[in-house]
């Protein structure tokens, strides 16, 4: 699987503590927020048109999630599990290769 977080994302599992003994002694974090698919907040989703993409990586640079990753062939792709659909990538893209389309589920 090729995403930004690869193996870490696959291994992320919700942590359910069933008894007091399972709690850590100090308030330390036990896992990552990758268990939290924020993609369902989205109303509009960004779609990359690879014909127009010039591989400048401005979208990758400005993604606040980060949900945009660079594929081995150099093009960018979007991890829809986490993309909240803010639209910064589509607004900043110099060639308008990213468009926001209405999400349908």
């Amino acid at each position, binding site marked *: *699987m*090729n995403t*930004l*977080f*690869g193996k*870490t994302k696959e291994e992320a599992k919700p*942590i359910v*503590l069933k008894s007091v003994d399972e709690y*850590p002694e100090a*308030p*330390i*974090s*036990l*896992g*990552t*927020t*990758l*268990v*939290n*698919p*924020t993609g369902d*907040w989205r109303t509009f989703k960004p779609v990359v048109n690879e014909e127009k993409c010039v*591989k400048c*990586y401005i979208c*990758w*640079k*400005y*993604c*606040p*999630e*980060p*949900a945009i990753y*660079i*594929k*081995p062939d*150099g093009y960018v792709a979007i*991890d829809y*599990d*986490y993309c*909240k*659909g*803010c*639209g*910064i990538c*589509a*607004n*900043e893209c110099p060639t308008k290769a990213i468009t*926001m389309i209405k999400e349908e589920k």
Partner: protein
Amino acid sequence: MEVPENIKKRVTIPFEEHFYAGHTACQGCGASLGLRYVLKAYGKKTILVIPACCSTIIAGPWPYSAIDANLFHTAFETTGAVISGIEAALKAMGYKVKGEDGIMVVGWAGDGGTADIGLQALSGFLERGHDAVYIMYDNEAYMNTGIQRSSSTPYGAWTTNTPGGRRHFLEKRHKKKVIDIVIAHRIPYAATASIAYPEDFIRKLKKAQKISGPSFIQLFAPCPTGWRAPTDKSIEIARLAVQTAYFPLFEYENGKYKINMPNPKKEPKPIEEFLKLQGRFKYMTKEDIETLQKWVLEEWERLKKLAEVFG
């Protein structure tokens, strides 16, 4: 499925990611983007101290964490005190703090936690000269508790306790220049940065890492929720704030001022271009806009003179 080395070299900011997706910041959040850049610049060998602010929420609900570094949550007013204490403890235990390969102690507080509530702890930290970096991300109000005004809120802005209208008033005071209070301590390094210019921000973070002694960076981080702006315009607003000289980029290093504007010779754009993208400024009258424009240009002239005299 690795990204080839030649592509990693083409990106203009560090490639490694130490900030996990799935965090609970709003759509288009400027603060989460700033946090991502800080972790890109400093990597895993960082102790991040976050007081009560939006970033407490962004860093994740227990037992999850969005940050791939050490994180310490603390009370609202104590960021400066806690980074001082952690730095002193690390030094007493014989660790190398700051510098190329040292442990970075970073305070990451909002404008309320810096300019209002945490000001005395910040002043103490700067005065004692601890080897740590303090970053204030400036979203110009108390956003986490529901958009109340802070001393960093600009003139004419709508917030929930300056709602405007016939019986109330809009924010009547100008933005507090926290950076001038910080420079008054004559620390080795202080700078302003914007999320719209990440290369400049990361260069300043790296510089703060190399210089020994306390460093301070004020980061302009738009908040689409509180500024009543479209979520996709965050970067555009941050860029216009710099281009209109509302939030000029400069650094102060060992007594010398240096302006780092993207186009230094260009005259600032009119402030309306920055205001019209945000719903929080839509109640301003023409006179209000003129007052703000006058203040912005006065401050900009003042900064240019400082850079001329102490350049």
